[in-house]
């Protein structure tokens, strides 16, 4: 049997074609344009899911994605809103939160234990019977039950796109108010973007009825759409949800896998209104839906929502929906109106059609048929208390509306209501934001359109494109009729469908001492589900007001924060290529077969294994440096140009050593501290002329150092130009006893002889046809030259060095060999051997602190901390024998079984034939000759001998040959 209506219905489906998919393995037929939910409804499948806590059957409620009843899983994708997602051929749709099948869900047994699951029960449960019960019993049980849907851990990566757009006016909402606002603003000359979450413009004009004349909405829609499409300055985005409003009108708009971040000068919120359900016993049964849902099913998808209907007319729209149902051939059992008198002027038409009206009545209970899966009847009570049962398979609820307030509240506005909850207002609206339509308090069609036009003109006026309209469009009528929120003695009167919270749960939260709405929310979880309180906020506030003897205005309504609706993490993450940086020598390393490793965004050679295992290749590289010559790409080192009259004085303030008197042509070690006296960075400074310093920094700290220098230069008002030239210059460290011979084998105007180019000298000139800056410094402890040159010359230089060194045993070496080489010399690595508290004194670097300079950054703190005394000291240690204990970096140093330090650097030294390392230890233990206890990662403790640094070449003679 099909529930399809005939022609004249179904504006979104293409009946000339068909499609089929499966739902829980059952074949479902539909048409292009159907959503999953509409196709299921057309096939008589009204149960879509099971509720979170009690596993109650749930079905269509809003038919516009504003509830969690329609969440389904499609293949690997969980939490798909079936009333929004288009059906497509061949997809396999499955229900969520089901144990067994949707119709026979074993999880429903939990509802029988509902009395043991009152509000906030989890704060008082799961503590026993034993201490281990939580981890062994309850946690696994809860984890298995938690969540909706199943996440696949090996799902194929999806592509998400992010873009940024700017506009003069952003209009959110493409219903009558939004269309009118967008058209007016665009006609005035503004660049307008109109965002509508439905697949077509029009909003309620596409499905609702506004009068006995069913075509009124369509005529308005055609006129507005035609005007909109004719405006070149109006850009329309349909199927796009504005998911929040951030500072200065920065708004995320989500359309499928695309996130469009829009910056708007003026913002118009025409976000409409959300129809509200009613609270009564079993108000969650499939077959109970909002009037707008029934109209969407009929007008958009040509689906008959039921065979025999009861309509609750909590406002005029209920009567209009009844006319639609009658037009569609649905039998109307009764129209239930809580008001005793006719306020809607529709009595004559209803009487003409013979539609029965029960005035002054309320709904008390809904009952399900056999199996409990669908509505079978409702119970209606009149003012005298007499109850009557009405058989039906459809209950259409027109429970009134609340305005679409979320985005306005994101902007800092406030939502207020009168004490009966029948009229709403949004106040404290910030500048550059304009409300239109229902958001502005209007609910009649003419008023909504007029208010939209006014909002568009106000936005244009703020841009200087038009004159601002005078006055506000008056609200012609209330939002809803006041409906009671009283508990049913048997319960199951749901206030929050997502969380299965009933009236008594909210009342009990108040009774437990939580009087304030924000606390009730957090205690009970009301409003925390996927619907985010769209339907629960007002009834909850009214219950709290009643139980605390306060007015609704005094209680207020909980605020709203972004996001407005669900958003995939992929939209927030960045799926564009991850940033990486290559030195100019990268092709050379790849060609040489280097194993590359990331160092921040940079990629650097770890080792050049060749045909050997990496461990042996590393040993070979170390031997090459110690016995012959090696070259290392150090292009990632930070490089800063400091030029100008105050360059030397500036360096004197930034660094701890004396640079103002540094001779031209000399290189000096640089140590930078922060204002706490902790080590920030180190490097060297080559004085190239009186007013020109070339300064190096560590790869990881150069950006921070550059920012700090720029700040301090501005504060001190010094005349020095500071430029970060890290990427502009490549750098090669040529090191080993034969390094000089390699350089002397190349054409150059630099005299590399020992007497002409001593340790800590710097020279500028030409080498192998390239301009170079060469510094004789040492990290490895061997004769070393650090060759800096423009990055475009680096490959040629590398090749020239390789050719010149071919007969001298020259080999490239990588980071791991470099790490061991410098460790053998006891040289620290900033960020590895230092942390945020490391002072020069802790590292035995008091020699780097000038005693004569009156000021350098951190001087005062260094002296103050020195007076306090140190609690740790970095020292060198060796392990006698092997490393069976598996000591490594971060291994703890212990004293009397308590941690008092840790290992910062560690490795096997081929040059001294031992395991060596650096570690923090108490000062009294960090002296040569002492022993420290280290706990290896095997769990074993081992004693290590503290030794003097460096481990290799203690006189440092090799670097000064």
């Amino acid at each position: 049997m099909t529930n399809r209506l005939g022609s004249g219905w179904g504006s979104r489906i293409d009946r000339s074609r068909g499609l089929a998919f499966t739902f829980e393995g059952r074949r479902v037929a539909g048409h292009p344009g159907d959503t999953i939910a509409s196709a299921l409804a057309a096939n008589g499948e009204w149960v879509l899911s099971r509720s979170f806590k009690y596993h109650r059957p749930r079905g269509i409620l809003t038919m516009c994605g504003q509830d969690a009843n329609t969440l389904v899983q499609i293949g690997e994708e969980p939490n798909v809103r079936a009333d929004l997602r288009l059906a497509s051929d061949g997809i396999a749709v499955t229900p969520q939160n089901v144990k067994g099948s949707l119709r026979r869900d074993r999880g429903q047994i939990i509802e029988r234990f509902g009395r043991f699951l009152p509000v906030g029960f989890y704060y008082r449960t799961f503590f026993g019977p034993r201490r281990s019960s939580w981890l062994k019993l309850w946690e696994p049980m809860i984890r298995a039950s938690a969540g909706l849907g199943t996440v696949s851990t090996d799902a194929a990566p999806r592509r998400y796109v992010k873009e940024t757009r700017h506009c003069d006016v952003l209009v959110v909402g493409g219903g009558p108010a939004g269309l009118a606002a967008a058209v007016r603003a665009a006609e005035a000359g503004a660049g307008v973007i109109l965002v509508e979450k439905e697949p077509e413009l029009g909003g309620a004009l596409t499905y609702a009825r506004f009068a006995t004349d069913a075509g009124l909405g369509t005529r308005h829609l055609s006129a507005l759409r035609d005007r909109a499409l004719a405006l070149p300055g109006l850009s329309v985005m349909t199927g796009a949800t504005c998911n929040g409003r951030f500072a200065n009108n920065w708004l995320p708009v989500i359309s499928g896998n695309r996130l469009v971040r829009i910056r708007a000068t003026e913002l118009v919120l025409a976000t409409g209104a959300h129809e509200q359900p009613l609270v009564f016993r079993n108000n969650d049964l499939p077959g109970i839906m909002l009037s707008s849902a029934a109209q969407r099913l009929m007008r958009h998808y040509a689906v008959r929502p039921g065979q025999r209907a009861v309509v609750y007319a909590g406002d005029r729209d209920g009567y209009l929906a009844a006319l639609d149902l009658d037009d569609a051939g649905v039998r109307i059992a009764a129209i239930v109106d809580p008001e005793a008198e006719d306020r809607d002027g529709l009595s004559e038409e209803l009487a003409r059609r013979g539609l029965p009206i029960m005035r002054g009545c309320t709904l008390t209970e809904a009952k399900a048929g056999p199996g409990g899966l669908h509505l079978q009847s409702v119970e209606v009570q009149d003012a005298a208390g007499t109850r009557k049962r009405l058989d039906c398979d459809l209950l259409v609820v027109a429970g009134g509306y609340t305005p679409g307030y979320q985005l306005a509240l994101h902007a800092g506005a406030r939502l207020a209501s009168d004490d009966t909850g029948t009229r709403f207002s949004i106040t404290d609206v910030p500048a550059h934001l304009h409300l239109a339509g229902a958001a502005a308090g209007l609910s009649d069609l003419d008023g909504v359109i007029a208010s939209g036009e006014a909002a568009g003109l106000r936005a244009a006026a703020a841009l200087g494109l038009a004159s601002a309209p005078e006055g506000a469009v008056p609200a012609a009528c209330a939002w809803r009729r006041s409906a009671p929120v009283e508990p049913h003695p048997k319960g199951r009167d749901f206030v929050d469908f997502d969380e299965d919270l009933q009236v008594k749960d909210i009342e009990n939260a108040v009774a437990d001492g939580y009087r304030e709405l924000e606390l009730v929310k957090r205690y009970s979880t009301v409003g925390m589900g996927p619907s985010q309180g769209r339907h629960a906020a007002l009834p909850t506030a009214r219950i709290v007001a009643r139980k605390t003897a306060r007015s609704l205005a005094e209680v207020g309504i909980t605020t709203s924060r972004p996001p407005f609706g669900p958003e995939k993490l992929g939209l927030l993450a960045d799926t564009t290529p991850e940033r990486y940086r290559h030195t100019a020598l990268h092709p050379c390393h790849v060609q040489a077969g280097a194993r590359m490793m990331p160092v921040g965004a940079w990629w650097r050679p770890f080792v050049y294994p060749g045909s050997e295992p990496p461990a042996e290749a590393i040993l070979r590289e170390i031997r090459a440096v110690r016995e012959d010559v090696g070259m290392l790409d150090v292009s990632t080192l930070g490089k800063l140009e400091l030029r100008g009259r105050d360059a030397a004085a500036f360096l004197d303030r930034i660094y701890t050593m004396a640079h103002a008197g540094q001779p031209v042509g000399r290189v000096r070690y640089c140590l930078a501290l922060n204002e706490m006296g902790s080590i920030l960075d180190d490097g060297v400074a080559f004085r190239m002329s009186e007013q020109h310093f070339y300064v190096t920094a560590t790869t990881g700290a150069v950006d921070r150092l550059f920012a700090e220098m720029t700040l301090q230069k501005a504060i001190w008002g010094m005349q020095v130009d500071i430029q970060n030239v890290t990427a502009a210059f490549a750098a090669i460290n040529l090191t080993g006893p034969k390094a000089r011979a390699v350089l002397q084998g190349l054409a150059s105007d630099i005299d590399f002889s020992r007497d002409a180019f001593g340790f800590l000298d710097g020279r500028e000139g030409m080498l192998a046809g390239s301009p170079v800056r060469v510094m004789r410094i040492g990290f490895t402890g061997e004769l070393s030259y650090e060759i800096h040159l423009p990055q475009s010359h680096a490959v040629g230089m590398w090749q020239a060095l390789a050719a010149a060194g071919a007969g001298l045993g020259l080999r490239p070496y990588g980071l791991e060999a470099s790490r061991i080489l410098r460790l053998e010399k006891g040289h620290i690595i900033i960020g590895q051997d230092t942390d945020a508290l490391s002072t020069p004194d802790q590292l035995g670097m008091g020699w780097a602190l000038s005693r004569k300079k009156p000021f350098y950054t951190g001087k005062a703190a260094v002296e103050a901390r020195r007076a306090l005394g140190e609690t740790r000291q970095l020292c060198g240690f060796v392990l006698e024998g092997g490393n069976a204990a598996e000591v490594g970096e971060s291994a703890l140093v212990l004293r009397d079984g308590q941690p008092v330090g840790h290992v910062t650097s560690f490795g096997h030294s081929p040059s001294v034939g031992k395991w060596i390392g650096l570690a923090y230890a108490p000062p009294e233990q960090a002296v040569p000759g002492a022993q420290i206890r280290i706990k290896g990662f095997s769990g074993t403790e081992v004693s290590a001998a503290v030794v003097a640094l460096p481990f290799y070449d203690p006189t440092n003679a090799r670097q000064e040959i």
Partner: protein
Amino acid sequence: MTTAIIATRHWPLSQRLPAVDRLPASGESWLTDLSALPRMGLRGPGTADWMAAQGLPLPGPIDRALDLPGLTLVPLGAEEAVILSDPHGDPGVIRRLRDAWWQSPGPKGFDAYRDETWAWFRLTGPAAEQALPLLTALDTRPAAFPAAAVAQTRVMHMDAVILRSADGGALDLLFDIASSGYALDFIKDVIPGIRTARLAG
């Protein structure tokens, strides 16, 4: 022993992009790497006066480039600018300017090494214009970013200079040269099918 070697210059994308002799025809969507082309940057006290003395006065607004015979003058600050060569012009223009700078006494600003610090990409064609919102959060609407406009901003999650050509048909990007490969990957990701090449210089 000395070994005579002629220094050659290498550019990051030399092995990834085919070399072409001329810029692609207008109307097609291309990414062309111009990093090998001559350019010169100056910064610091004396820059503006020295450039004015060479007949290259910095344009008043910092956000507007100026096309002159054989070069484009891109101001970056009151005392900072980069001079880009005309891809099809006389390659000696920048060289002669640099020689004049070296020979000039100060104050004349400092060499900003812009021929080494920055890669230089040119994007042309309709796909490039459409992809701008994917590359940067800058307002690139024609009224906000017209022909000859210059912006120092963030592009592809990096600091960059972006300028629109005087005829509005091309977009030039100047950014960290070490990120050349990443930038190529990024643009090919967001503009599938864009054609790529490099001018050898």
